[in-house]
Every structure is written in structure tokens, then in C-alpha cells.
């Protein structure tokens, strides 16, 4: 596997540290005029999601992590694993466990495309697209005519996610939802 020296460290670079794959967030070069140079580096451990701060002597290197982000279509769940398929026409499938799917589980909809992070060929993390369109399966009855007024109510979506929606939304409607903020955006044109 390739390795990267501190002067190649950039935000987004994936490296191995203490046996875990990490992504570099920030790299600060520190050097007294006449002295040894160091790099103060912030990394996110992709296994635990924790942020680490480490200092390296400049010129040191870290092994590259065999990590890549691929677009994959969600196919189905067998109760234990969630199965995803590459969108490159290869039909190759990958099984993600509960840890890899994490919070994304509440946005999983069949045939929708997700970003799957593979580490050594196995799913490490699944992230939803910024926006998904989902059907309302449960909410209090809508208030007719109340389209301008403020106020909101919880609505349960087909994937199990619960978001606050305007009072006029009814069961069966298709909504566009922002997955980053867990927020209703608009009625989807379906």
C-alpha cells in the first residue's frame, strides 16, 4: 500500500493511524525558524467517528488507508445486513452491518443511491444523499385550508424517520426531506 508524507497531507486524505482508518481534517505546519518542523494534524477516526489531534515530525509518513467512497443502490435488508449494489453496471453487492449503516437506517429506501465507504473491501459507513423523497405513513389529520399558517406536527415516514411537517400534510403524501438537518423541505412532485 502507498504511504503519504506529512507534506502531502491534505483535508480528505485517508490514512491508517494506530490500526484504524482515518480521514485528515486539518494539517498545520509548525516550525521555529531554525528548528525541526512538525505537523499538527486533526483526523477523524472512521471507525469510531472520534476526532484525534496528533503531532508528527515533518517528513514522517503514514500508510494510505484502503478506503473509498462509492455510489451504491440500496437493495434490501435481510434483518441482519443491509445490501447495496454498485451502480456501475457490475451488479456487485455488498452487505453492510448495523454499525456501518448507523443512523442512515432511517433514510434507507429501495432503489435510492447512497454513498458507501468501503474499507478493505467491506462497508464501513453509509451516508444518505442530502435530500430524499419519502411517503408519509402516519400523522394527525390535515387541517383543510391551512396552507399559510405556521405550526407543525410530527409525521412518520415510510422508512421510520420522524420529521416535523406543516399542519396541512396528510398521510400518503410524498415529501422532500433534508437528511442533514432531519427537516421537511417541500411536497415532492410525484
Amino acid at each position: 500500500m502507498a504511504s503519504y508524507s506529512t507534506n502531502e497531507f491534505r483535508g480528505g486524505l485517508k490514512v491508517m493511524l494506530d490500526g484504524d482508518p482515518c480521514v485528515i481534517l486539518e494539517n498545520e505546519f509548525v516550525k521555529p525558524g531554525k528548528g525541526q518542523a512538525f505537523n499538527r494534524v486533526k483526523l477523524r477516526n472512521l471507525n469510531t467517528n472520534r476526532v484525534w489531534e496528533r503531532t508528527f515530525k515533518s517528513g514522517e509518513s503514514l500508510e494510505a488507508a484502503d478506503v473509498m467512497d462509492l455510489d451504491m443502490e440500496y437493495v434490501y435488508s435481510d434483518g441482519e445486513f443491509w445490501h447495496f449494489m454498485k451502480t456501475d453496471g457490475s451488479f456487485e453487492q455488498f452487505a453492510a452491518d448495523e454499525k456501518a449503516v448507523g443512523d442512515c437506517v432511517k433514510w434507507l429506501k429501495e432503489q435510492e443511491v447512497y454513498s458507501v465507504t468501503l474499507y478493505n473491501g467491506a462497508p464501513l459507513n453509509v451516508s444518505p444523499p442530502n435530500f430524499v423523497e419519502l411517503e408519509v405513513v402516519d400523522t394527525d389529520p390535515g387541517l383543510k385550508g391551512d396552507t399559510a399558517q405556521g405550526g407543525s406536527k410530527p409525521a412518520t415516514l415510510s422508512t421510520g424517520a420522524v420529521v416535523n411537517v406543516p399542519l396541512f400534510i396528510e398521510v400518503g403524501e410524498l415529501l422532500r426531506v433534508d437528511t442533514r438537518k432531519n427537516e421537511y423541505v417541500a411536497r415532492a412532485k410525484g
Partner: protein
Amino acid sequence: MTVQGDDWRPAASLERLRARAALLASVRAFFSARGVLEVETPVLGRFGVSEPHLHSVSVTSVFDGEGFLQTSPEYHMKRLLAAGSGPIYQIARVFRGDEQGGRHNPEFSLLEWYRPGFGMEQLMEEVADLVVGVLGCERPSVRDCRELYRTLADVDPWEDGDAELVEAASEFSGVVQEQISRGDALDLLMSFCIEPALAEQGPVFVVNYPPEQAALARRDLHQGYTVARRFELYVQGLELCNGYQELADAKEQRERFAEDNRLRQSLERRPMEADSRLIAALSHGLPECSGVALGLDRLLMLLVGASSISEVLAFPADRA
């Protein structure tokens, strides 16, 4: 090489480029009024610098095979001094390989000047005149290097063994002890412990460095222990300049070149041939003098309130 859409544009605003021009003009006026001669020396020299932690950029297809972009105009300016130039200054473009970050660019502007007959303290006064004149800040206080290590890092580089220094450096920086040499420990404590503390004070001169950090400064006895007659100025925690009461002894200079190369070898860095013309000049006789190199880009950063050096450069390394 990927070129992004906006990469062709300057990184610094036009307003900051005007501030740079005004700064250069005021520096020239400052030295002109004091009768210091402006000089120019080669940017591309036959010899590189031997200092272990500076990387001279190598250039091929010149001279008889290889030359070096200068990391500072020091060697050439000392040859002028030995030839009887009197007080001189230079605004030099200098190059240091592998230095890039918020406070570093591999190519930068160094204001370097030499004062025959000046002791270190006298030159510090002149540095203060220049910096206070430009920034309008208060006059720098003076702090002894040993006292700073003692009070801020709880170590004494003159008394403590390697183990104590390395342990403290590891604690402050998080670097594992096995990777830290004595020299690294002093640098780490300076960068991770002392500099951040100085950031909260006004401008500060740090003086009288441990003898192993002398570089080209004279070593002298001070209150019964040997120090490097070296000073640095920190403003808001930013290292602005580095000055010496200059080493004038050719024999000791030759020994320091050899010492540097031994250290370079242990760090697996290429040895640098000693600049025989500098040695010859020192043998001829360098007048007793003090000299200082000041980072003009950093002075400009402080003047305009920039947080990164790229904000004051028309085209920093990633747009060059």
C-alpha cells in the same frame, strides 16, 4: 497539476498589495535615514546552507552542475562586511524547501541587515524602532530564554538531561518520546508551550539561547553559564525575526559547518559543502557586528491583521 477555476487570481487583495508596497517604501526610508546601504546579493549561489533544519532548494544546469537558491543572504552579506562595506541591508527573496503552511511559504521576503560595531542589545533597539514604527505597537519587553523554559515548561535546558526535556516535550506535544531528540525537545517546547504563552503578551524579545541553538551566533558567558548571543522577536506569538551577535571566528565557523553536517547525516539529510568563500572572508576578518533577519511577509500580516501568510502574497505557493 490541477488548475481550479479561480487559481489564476491573486490571493491577496489589491489593498494588501498596496500595503506591501508602502511597507517596502517605509523600510527603505528607515535605513536610508540611518545611513545603512542597500545591497543585492545572489539569489542563486554555488553553496547551500548547512543548517540541519533548513532545506536549500537545489538547481541544476548552473555553474558546474549544481547551485542552490539561498535560504538567506547571510553568507554573501558577510563577505561584503569582511570587504569593508560598513552597515548594509537587503530586502531579499529567499527559498526554503518543504516549508508551507499558515505562516510559511517556500519563497518569501527577508529583510536582513548588519551593523558593524553594534552589540546585540543595540541592534535589538534598532529592530524595536523599526517594528514599533511600522505597527504602532508598544516597545517589546525582553525575556531570558532560560527563564521562559523554566517558568512555562518547567525545564531547564542548561541543567536538565535529555530524558527530562524529552519527557516534557512529549507531554506538551503528544509526540512519542522515542521520536524526540534533545534538539527536537527544545523546538517542541518552544512551539507548543512557550510561543502560545507569548501570544498573550505584547511584543517580546527572547534572548540568550541554549548554546546548541547558536547557529551563527557567538557563544558567550552570561551570569556564569554559556549562552548563544541570539535573539528573536515575537509579536502576537508570531516569530518575526532572528538576530545574532555574529560569530567572526573562521576556525569556529568551520567547526560549526562540520557539526551541522554530522547532525544532517544523523537525520539522513544530504551533507552541504562548507562555503569556502565565507570561511575565507572570515579568515580575512569580519568586523565585530550584529545582524538580524526579519520576515517581511509576517510583518505585513501583523500590519493588516491577516491570519495566514497567503493573504498577503499575490501568488502563494499553491497559485505560483
